[in-house]
Structures are given as structure tokens and as C-alpha cells.
């Protein structure tokens, strides 16, 4: 076949583009329809989270923290709250550990479900979006009953959690968790064997191990490249030591592998939720959910590095506290900030329409990148 003559072109995607999940700009160099170079421009959603910390007290900063990643606010809350607890040597009660775990896992499921819907939308399939949102809606209803909010929870506090989880909440979670198994089965049947889906995701956006390490990629994107790395197993926090769950990995390294791992992670999270419910149902009379720490006059001192395995990867909150009422410096290490950097590496040589699929598969959320 004769080689088709192509033109080099530079096109602009975003900042306001539905597939960028926020505001992000990509300057793409094309040769015909093949991607040659992608330059990402970020910073449209910068809100100065780190500067805000320096001008507020520890308790004033607490509600802002959820906004760093609004799809999985519990993880940000936990990273911050845990950092202060490390500095102040606060031991939290067993029950609050379980409540934190169950909320975080439900949050992980909600985040993955939203990702799944939006990712399928990026690929051009609109019906899975509605199925995932039905399930996500149930989780948000549970959170609304428990915390009073649907997205920005402000539920954790220094020394525990703010409200106790009651019997109705637990039964609601149990009901959701039992039904979710079947809902996920339906979703998988809808997507997994679809030839269009397979042809648009298989052998696409290969992320090699070396590249993943060089760019400090964490979470599902790293595990899809065949590296078994999960903070919940490596350095168990909260109660993950007592709980049985697997860390699924895949050797395929492509977009489809990332999709399959997220589905598997949904199942594992569901398992963790069920084990937590069993414990909480047998300990209904235990009302010890918070350790009194006088949060208004907290004056911690030192440096704390607090880590959590969020739904997108390793999240760190590094707190420099100098013994006054205000934090001296707070640094957020957010996983999406690192995932954004590999778009150029893994989308070279693919078509422009594949760029959207690759970008979607990384599960990048812009407020987390820009903070």
C-alpha cells in the first residue's frame, strides 16, 4: 500500500473539555492522526490549599481538606488527621478505626464507580454511566445519613470520628454491599466482552515498569504494570492487618488492565466492607468513638509524614508544625500530580482518539493535581 502523505499539526485540547475531568489543557503535536508529543498545562484549579493552611488553625483547616480530592474526601481527611495524631501521640479507639476503614473503602468504591462511568462515556458508551451512578448514589445516600454531607464530609476529627454509626446505617451498608455483588456482575457482563470496548482498550497506552518507577506512579496504574505495591499491605495502617483481602495485579500494562484492576478492586473493597460490618454489628454497644484532645488549642511540634492508599494511589500529607496554633507548612503529595506527567510517555505513537482513552484510564482528577 502506498504511504499516505500526512501533515504535521498542533492542536489544543481543553481547558474546558468534557474528557479532561476538570480544567486541564493539552497541547498535542500530531503527525496526521498520530500523537507525537503531548504537553500538559495545569494550574487552572489552583486554590492555594497549602497557603491556606499557614493562615488558619489546625481545626479551621480540617473542613477545607476534603476539597483537595472531592471524589474521595475521606482519604484526604484521614491523611491530615492522622498526621496530627502522629505528632500529638493520640491513640484512637478500635471502633473509630473500624468506622474510618469502612467509610474509606466505601469512598474508594464510589470513586471507582464514578471513574468507570466517565471512562465509558469517554469511549462513547453512555449507558454504563447510568448503571454506575445508580450504585454510587446508594453510597452517597449512606454517607449523607452518616455524616450529613454527600461529598465534603468533614467527618473525621482529631482523635476519632464525629458521629457514631448506628444500627440503621449498618443495615443500609449491609444491604448495599450484598446487592452490589450482583450489580457489578451486570456491569461486567455489559462491558467486558464488548468487542468495541476491547478493540479500543487492548494493547493501548503501555506503561512499562521502569517508566512507572521513574515517574513515581502509585496505585492501580502501578499495579497494572505488574508491581505489587499497596500501602495497605506493605505498611498496614488502621485495621488492615486483621482483614483478609487481596491486592490484584496484572502484567498486561495497558488500558484494559487498568480497567480490570479497578473492577477487581471494587470487589476487594466490598469484601473489606463486609468484614467491617460484621465487627461493627457485634460491637454496637461500644460507644467509644472519640478521644478527647481539645482540638481548639492543639500545638503539635515536629514533622509528620502521614500516608494513605487513596483510590488513585499513594497520598501523603507532610506537616511541619512549630509548636504554635497554626501549621508552619503543609505539603500534599497527591497521586494525580504524578499520573499527569506520564501522559506524554505513554500516548506517543497512538491515535488522537486513543489519547482520550489513555488519559481516562489513568483516573486523573484535576483538583488533586492543582490543589
Amino acid at each position, binding site marked *: 500500500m502506498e504511504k499516505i502523505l500526512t501533515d504535521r499539526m498542533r492542536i489544543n485540547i481543553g481547558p474546558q473539555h468534557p474528557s479532561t475531568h476538570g480544567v486541564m489543557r493539552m497541547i498535542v503535536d500530531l503527525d496526521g492522526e498520530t500523537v507525537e508529543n503531548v504537553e500538559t498545562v495545569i494550574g487552572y484549579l489552583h486554590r492555594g490549599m497549602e497557603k491556606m493552611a499557614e493562615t488558619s488553625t489546625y481545626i479551621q483547616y480540617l473542613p477545607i481538606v476534603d476539597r483537595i480530592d472531592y471524589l474521595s474526601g475521606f482519604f484526604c481527611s484521614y491523611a491530615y488527621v492522622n498526621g496530627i495524631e502522629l505528632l500529638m501521640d493520640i491513640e484512637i479507639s478500635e471502633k473509630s478505626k473500624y468506622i474510618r476503614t469502612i467509610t474509606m473503602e466505601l469512598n474508594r468504591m464510589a470513586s471507582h464507580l464514578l471513574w468507570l462511568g466517565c471512562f465509558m462515556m469517554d469511549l462513547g458508551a453512555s449507558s454504563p454511566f447510568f448503571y454506575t451512578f445508580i450504585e454510587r448514589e446508594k453510597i452517597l445516600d449512606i454517607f449523607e445519613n452518616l455524616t450529613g454531607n454527600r461529598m465534603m464530609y468533614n467527618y473525621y476529627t482529631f482523635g476519632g470520628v464525629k458521629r457514631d454509626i448506628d444500627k440503621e446505617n449498618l443495615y443500609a451498608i449491609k444491604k448495599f454491599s450484598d446487592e452490589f455483588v450482583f450489580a457489578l456482575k451486570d456491569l461486567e457482563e455489559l462491558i467486558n466482552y464488548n468487542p468495541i470496548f476491547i478493540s479500543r482498550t487492548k494493547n493501548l497506552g503501555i506503561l512499562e515498569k521502569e517508566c512507572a518507577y521513574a515517574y513515581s506512579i502509585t496505585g492501580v496504574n502501578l499495579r497494572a504494570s505488574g508491581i505489587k505495591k499497596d500501602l495497605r499491605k506493605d505498611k498496614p495502617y488502621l485495621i488492615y492487618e486483621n482483614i483478609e483481602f487481596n491486592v490484584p495485579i496484572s502484567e498486561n500494562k495497558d488500558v484494559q488492565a487498568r480497567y480490570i484492576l479497578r473492577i477487581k478492586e471494587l470487589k476487594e473493597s466490598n469484601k473489606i466492607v463486609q468484614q467491617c460490618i460484621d465487627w461493627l454489628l457485634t460491637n454496637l454497644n461500644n460507644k467509644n468513638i472519640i478521644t478527647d484532645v481539645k482540638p481548639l488549642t492543639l500545638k503539635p*511540634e515536629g*514533622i509528620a509524614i502521614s500516608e494513605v492508599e487513596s483510590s488513585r494511589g499513594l497520598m501523603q500529607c507532610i506537616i511541619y508544625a512549630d509548636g504554635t496554633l497554626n501549621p508552619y507548612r503543609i505539603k500534599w*503529595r497527591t497521586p494525580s500530580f504524578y499520573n499527569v506527567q506520564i501522559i506524554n510517555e505513554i500516548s506517543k505513537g497512538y491515535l488522537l482518539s486513543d489519547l482520550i482513552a489513555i488519559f481516562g484510564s489513568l483516573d486523573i482528577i484535576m483538583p488533586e493535581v492543582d490543589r
Partner: protein
Amino acid sequence: MIKIREVDLFENLKRKFDIRIENCPRMFLDKGNELNSVQKDMKCIVKREYSAFDEHLTDDTELKCDTELNHIKPDIYLLRVKKEDIRQILRYLKNSEEYFFERLDCMVCCDRKKDLEIMYLLQSDKYNVKCGIRVEIDKKENQIATVSDIFSNANLEEREIYDLFGIKFINHPDLKRIFMPEDFVGHPLRKDFIIQRLN
């Protein structure tokens, strides 16, 4: 009964470069806790007690200000190095089989009023340990060598630090503002940055 082996984890590094160990996790063999495989591999049984480290730290007490923060939680290895050596040390820690700190978790910059400080947080997945490398940067000089060719993710990190703190990274491929608009004046996370009300 097992004797305490006194092995210095950073012995080789010390021989090559001028470093100061600020924090080193304490682990004992004779407390009844068996060392796990990770610790055995790392041979990280600490040479001295904490008090000895404190003595070491009092060498420059007159430098101490309200932001001299030295105790870190959880316990990780904390080294203070000279900024001229930073590239060599990071390359050594990344490539040598002895340490294998092959991931740069993040770079934390902090304005300590008298100077600026960058902490490179390294993670060794092989041994599952973390190490913080702290470098002081003089405010007048205000520059340090880039490490973006050693760790690729340092590229955006350094741009972030340049944007928010104004530290220049020598030989950085694309040093420009990342969060703030290009015509912005000042570096917002510096302590002398004045927050203005925009009406």
C-alpha cells in the same frame, strides 16, 4: 543471648560524602523482637542512642530558630547533606544495590525564615523503608542543581517549587510557573509574601 551488632547503615555513604545523620530509627536485637527479613537485609541496627544524636545536633545551636524542626514521625532515616553533593548522593542512593532508593516520593520545600530547605523523600520498595534527605539553600544564592534527569517526576516538582518558593534549578529543561499565572509577581509560599485583599 544475641549481641547487638553495631552496624552503621550509611557507613559507605559517609566515607564518600559529607553528610550528617539527623534521625535514625532505633531497632534492637536483644529486646525479644525478632528482626524481620527487611531489617536483616538493611543491617540497620543503630550505632548510637538518641542522646548521642542530640549531642551531635547541638553543634550549631546558635543557628536554631523557631522553625528548626528535627523530630520526625514516623521514624525514618533523615540525612542532612550539602547542596553541592545532592546530585551525586541521590544517584548513589538510587543505583547502588546497598540502598536501592529507586523512587522519589516527593520533594518538600519549606521556608525556614533564615534559609530555604528542600527535603527529598526517597522510598525503597525493595526494603520498604523511607529516607529523607534535607538540603539547606541560602536565600541570597537561591539556586540548586536539578535532579530531574535522575528522577523524572522531579521535573514538575521542581517547577512547583520554583513557582511557589522562587528557587531556581540549574539545568532544568523547562523552568516556568506551573500553578500561578505567568505574569504573577512574587512567590506565594514564602513567609515574606504579603497576602493582599483583591477587591
